[in-house]
């Protein structure tokens, strides 16, 4: 955190000054470790085992927050008889389709509960991204797997039309069910004594019993004493009187099991009673300013603003069907119709009427996963022919950078907007493939447009940070020359397209022509008023009066709102995000600094900060509580609960929506009002986290016989430039004997677009380097300050050698394991240049959110510089040959055949 978020780290230092204990768990010793009370180095890619070990310790030693767990989590809920755990099935859960690498979650249900039927309709289509059968794609991109996938295609009958149609996996509700989790319904059986063998609590206990301190040591390389010290510190600090917070970044998410990392932390924090209480929680440090904002108002393919699911081609024929399928029966997601209709009114204004389903048909439809990496594959296959790159540098920052460039070389046109001439804009003339001869400029048909972009200081706008806080920033200077803001670009692009389409009678142009696209502009460049966009996001009623709360939204078309969770950010026509009242002039929760969604609430699920009877768990941690005299919830924050619903409220049997929540259903967005220790539906890769090794690992999984996540997303990215390495005990794995992790350093920002052109930042870290331990340096003959090259099955890069104790060796399964650390900031352009670490990483994904695995893989490292020209790919190929790599290596799972692990 000190390394990548030094400004935010000031609050950690402040907490430390007030007595907080800071524990840092990270493979490398960073600036954070230097200031922590305890640094715990662990093997990259083993955090589920580490956290799972703590869960086991908490359960075995009865350190969980009993009353919280019983009242606010689904610990007492009984799971159906058909569920089989990893303990029963040698490391996988019931419902696994090996060939499909997907789970049927039917057996994961609560007893008596049903996952909403509509989701099942999505299963009738094929499960993987379907490859072309007409041979139009790049031959190089094809594989046997692709051909076999055709057999499972959804039978799209559109003749010669190129189709990427595919289904959403049966369990892939992660694609499409918004933030509330899967909708579930029915009357669930519970046992509040937690004794029934099929309660979530007992299942959890059995599932994690395997994660002993010994196993943690063997898997993570963390000595038992250190591990137990962490357990004790955390448990001692998680009581009615005290709370503990978790902070993570992409070190937890960029894995084939990334979502399950967060799930493990969620289980632990729910067991310890650290959610919904001040000082608790799980905080995601996002990679850029306002990445949280671009999830809320998404730049993602699978959700609409406010985490409303994107409709699907097969299962979302009309508004009513969609809403009834997606809304929850209980909790605030029951109002989905109001949120969605208000969004449609905000998009299409007067054109959206009850008679035309409020233009629901204008929304695009999913035909499967259209994630970033599937788009890369589609580009390589010639199916995706145009590409906008805004605020991103895939030629350096995305996994398998070479694939990213080759994909861009297959486009008809490419638009890059950035404030520096980044590698993604110049690969066609000076990229690594030009040097190796794999691409020739004159053969590349891509027309590349580079448009200079304004920095945040050159435009108005908002940042939404990790705790959902919107903070407005004002323009400080006019952008120079042709430089324009992204808002300017998108508004005027839309305006010009609409001008070109004006008068069209083609029905397919209606969604564009009917858009409300009338933002006021200012200045000589006609810059749109950013505040007008915020006002639209906030929403208004039929009279144009700004709304103040999402509870005002209606599904009859009388309200418009661009993002329901942001409703209130422009309440009373005032930009609430621009408030900057100093902390010294208000209470400690500081509601008058910026504005937090939803409803300016600073801690979500804060009903859980009080005991079931409504009294604070402790005076020290009192936050929101029930005032029996006033008969309402009061406290320091905006209560995240129906304001006058008494703690002892029992809803009538036939109640739905918010009214169906009881007085203790603190997790109001969940369909059962409970924090989910066990996920009966909604995750693609299991109802509970399980430690699987990364796609590529020098270590055989010490926890289960199953080496890798059996539901990882890999078949759709099999490609000659994306070969995978053997792992663990598999033959050839020793060719790539070292663990590799990638990361950021304080001096640079992500793929370098904002830092490698800044002299004052570049001079502080002028060269790409690799970090190795003194022992590894000795083993491989690496010279401090000299050069080394690092090899994976995808590519080879070179870097200066930093020999340091900051990358400690670990003892894993009885042997010393060396790790190689690589910052990923450099590329060929800018004031300081170097090879990009992402040349080495592969496209292999978490199946829930389609994120790449860049934080844990395996490599070899050799002294000296890498080969030049055609010798570069030749070296990579020689490694692949030595390791016996084929297109199926690391792709096919055989199940529990090897002897490793303990079944």
């Amino acid at each position, binding site marked *: 955190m*000190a390394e990548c978020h030094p400004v935010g780290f000031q609050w950690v230092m402040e907490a430390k000054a007030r007595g907080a204990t800071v524990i840092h768990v990270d493979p490398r010793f960073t600036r954070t470790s230097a200031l922590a*009370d305890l640094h715990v180095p662990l093997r990259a890619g083993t955090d589920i085992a580490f956290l799972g070990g703590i869960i086991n310790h908490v359960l075995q030693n009865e350190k969980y927050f009993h009353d919280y767990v019983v009242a606010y989590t689904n610990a007492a809920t009984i799971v159906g008889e058909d569920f089989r755990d990893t303990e029963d099935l040698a490391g996988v859960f019931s419902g696994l389709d090996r060939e499909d690498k997907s789970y049927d979650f039917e057996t994961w249900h609560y007893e008596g509960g049903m996952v909403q039927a509509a989701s099942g309709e999505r299963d009738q289509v094929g499960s993987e991204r379907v490859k072309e059968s007409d041979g139009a794609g790049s031959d190089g991109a094809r594989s046997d797997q692709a051909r076999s996938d055709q057999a499972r295609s959804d039978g799209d009958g559109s003749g010669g039309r190129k189709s990427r149609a595919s289904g959403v996996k049966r369990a892939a509700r992660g694609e499409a069910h918004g933030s509330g989790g899967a909708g579930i319904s029915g009357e669930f059986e519970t046992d509040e004594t937690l004794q029934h063998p099929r309660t979530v609590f007992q299942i959890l206990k059995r599932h994690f019993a395997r994660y002993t301190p010994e196993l943690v040591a063997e898997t993570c390389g963390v000595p038992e004493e250190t591990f137990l010290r962490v357990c004790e510190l955390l448990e001692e600090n998680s009581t009615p009187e005290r709370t503990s917070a978790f902070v993570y970044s992409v070190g937890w998410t960029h894995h084939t099991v990334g979502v399950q990392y967060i799930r493990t932390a969620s289980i632990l924090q729910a067991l310890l009673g650290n959610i919904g209480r001040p000082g608790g929680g799980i905080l995601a440090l996002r990679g850029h300013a306002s990445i949280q904002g671009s999830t809320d108002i998404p730049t993602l393919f699978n959700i609409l603003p406010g985490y409303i699911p994107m409709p699907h081609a097969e299962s979302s024929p009309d508004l009513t069907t969609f809403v009834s399928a997606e809304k929850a029966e209980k909790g605030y997601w029951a109002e989905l119709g109001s949120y969605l209709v208000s969004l449609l009114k905000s998009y299409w204004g007067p054109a959206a009427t009850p008679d035309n389903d409020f233009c629901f048909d204008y929304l695009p439809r999913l035909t499967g996963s259209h994630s970033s990496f599937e788009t890369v594959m589609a580009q390589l296959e010639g199916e995706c022919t145009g590409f906008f790159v805004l605020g991103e540098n895939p030629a350096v920052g995305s996994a398998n950078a070479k694939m990213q460039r080759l994909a861009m070389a297959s486009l008809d046109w490419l638009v890059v907007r950035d404030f520096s001439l980044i590698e993604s804009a110049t690969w066609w003339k000076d990229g690594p493939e030009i040097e190796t001869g794999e691409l020739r400029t004159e053969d590349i048909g891509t027309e590349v447009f580079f448009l200079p972009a304004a920095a945040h200081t050159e435009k108005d706008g908002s940042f939404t940070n990790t705790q959902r806080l919107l903070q407005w920033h004002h323009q400080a200077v006019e952008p120079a020359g042709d430089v324009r803001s992204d808002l300017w670009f998108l508004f005027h692009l839309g305006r010009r397209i609409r001008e070109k389409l004006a008068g069209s009678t083609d029905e397919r142009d209606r969604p564009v022509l009917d858009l409300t696209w009338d933002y006021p502009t200012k200045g000589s460049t006609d810059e749109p008023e950013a505040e007008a966009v915020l006002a639209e996001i906030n929403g208004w009623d039929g009279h144009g009066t700004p709304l103040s709360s999402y509870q005002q939204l209606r599904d009859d078309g009388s309200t418009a709102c661009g993002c329901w969770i942001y409703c209130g950010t422009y309440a009373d026509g005032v930009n609430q995000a621009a408030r900057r009242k100093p902390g010294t002039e208000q209470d400690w929760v500081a509601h008058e600094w910026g504005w937090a969604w939803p409803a300016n609430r600073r801690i979500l699920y804060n009903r859980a900060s009080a005991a079931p009877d409504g009294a604070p768990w402790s005076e020290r941690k009192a936050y929101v509580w029930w005032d029996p005299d006033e008969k309402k919830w009061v406290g320091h924050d905006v209560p995240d609960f129906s304001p006058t619903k008494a703690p002892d409220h029992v809803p009538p049997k036939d109640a739905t929506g918010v009214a169906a929540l009881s007085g203790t259903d603190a997790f109001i967005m969940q369909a059962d009002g409970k924090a989910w220790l066990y996920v009966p539906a909604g995750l693609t890769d299991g109802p509970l986290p399980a430690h699987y090794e990364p796609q590529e690992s020098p270590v055989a999984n010490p926890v289960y016989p199953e080496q890798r996540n059996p539901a990882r997303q890999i078949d759709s990215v099999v490609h000659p430039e994306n070969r995978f390495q053997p792992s663990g005990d598999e033959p050839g794995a020793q060719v790539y004997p070292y663990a590799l992790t990638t990361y950021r350093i*304080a*001096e640079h920002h992500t793929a370098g677009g904002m830092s490698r052109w800044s002299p004052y930042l570049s001079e502080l870290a002028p060269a790409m380097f690799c970090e190795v331990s003194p022992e590894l340096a000795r083993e491989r003959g690496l010279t401090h*300050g000299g050069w080394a090259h690092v090899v994976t099955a995808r590519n080879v890069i070179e870097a*200066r050698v930093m020999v*340091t104790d900051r990358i400690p060796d*670990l003892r894993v399964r009885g042997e010393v394991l060396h790790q190689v650390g690589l910052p990923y900031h450099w590329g060929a352009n800018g004031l300081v240049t170097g090879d990009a670490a992402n040349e080495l990483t592969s496209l292999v994904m978490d199946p829930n959110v389609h994120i790449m695995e860049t934080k844990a893989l395996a490599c070899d490292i050799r002294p000296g510089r890498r080969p030049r020209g055609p010798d570069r790919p030749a070296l990579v190929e020689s490694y692949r040959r030595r390791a016996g790599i084929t297109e199926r290596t690391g792709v096919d799972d055989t199940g529990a055949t090897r002897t490793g692990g303990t079944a």
Partner: protein
Amino acid sequence: MTAPPRMGFFTDTSVCIGCKACEVACKEWNAIPADFPEGGFTGTSMDSSEGLGADTWRHVAFVEQRRPLGGQDPGVPRTAPTPHDVAHLDVLSLAGQGASSAPAHIPASPAEPGPAGDFRWLMSSDVCKHCTHAACLDVCPTGSLFRTEFGTVVVQEDICNGCGYCVPACPYGVIDQRKDDGRVWKCTLCYDRIGVGAEPACAKACPTDSIQFGPLDELRERADARLAQLHGAGIDEARLYGRDPADGVGGDGAFFLLLDEPEVYGLPPDPVVTTRDLPRMWRHVGTAALALVGGVAAAFASTIVTGGRRR
């Protein structure tokens, strides 16, 4: 009109996170040229600016030590030392061997095997000390260097003639000549900012308040309290550096809380104002001159005498 109190910096290195925001903010505000390291890679831990100079007025040192702080334990006992190994992996000396040249071998083990993993990483933002007795100022023949109303020491760039006398005079090696310019440059304690009531750029940018700016008296009180707190927490090695008005430079206007010996951070252990002895030297010079004159006179007298005799 009363003079403002003497202003200064207290840099508490125990909360420095090494983010280098001070270095960047200083360069931005003062429009200091970039200064890329020769060879492109220093290998000096995360330090690429390598020290204070004409183009680096704030410098963050990074010191990697195999000493306990916080209890990192990677579980791998270090191997016993071989005859070739040195006691510490001294990145400073390794870096001194040049960025691209190969050291004879990689020193890879601590002197003692076991208990594994003791390691700490010290960070410290260095700056001009704005000495109470500033030798640079004493030797400046043009008056370019002067003491401001805030008690800070500032170079006036339009007066400096590049004579360079101040460079060897500085006991800390801070003040430095810019290569293509000849004039000397150093921290001004943001004279142009503090004059309008703003704090210096580095202190403003520091996210953890490792760099604190204020009246020196207040800073000294704050530093004493912080030191007592650290000592109370058992961190006995914590010490203040440049705090003592009775030290060789009369105390620093910019002083530090360190977690180890000053030398570890590249600071002189017992700095003395290089002009301290000047008055005494001048007295000696005077005596010597008098003696010389006396001798000459005596010799002359003697010559006269002998000459007289000769005559």
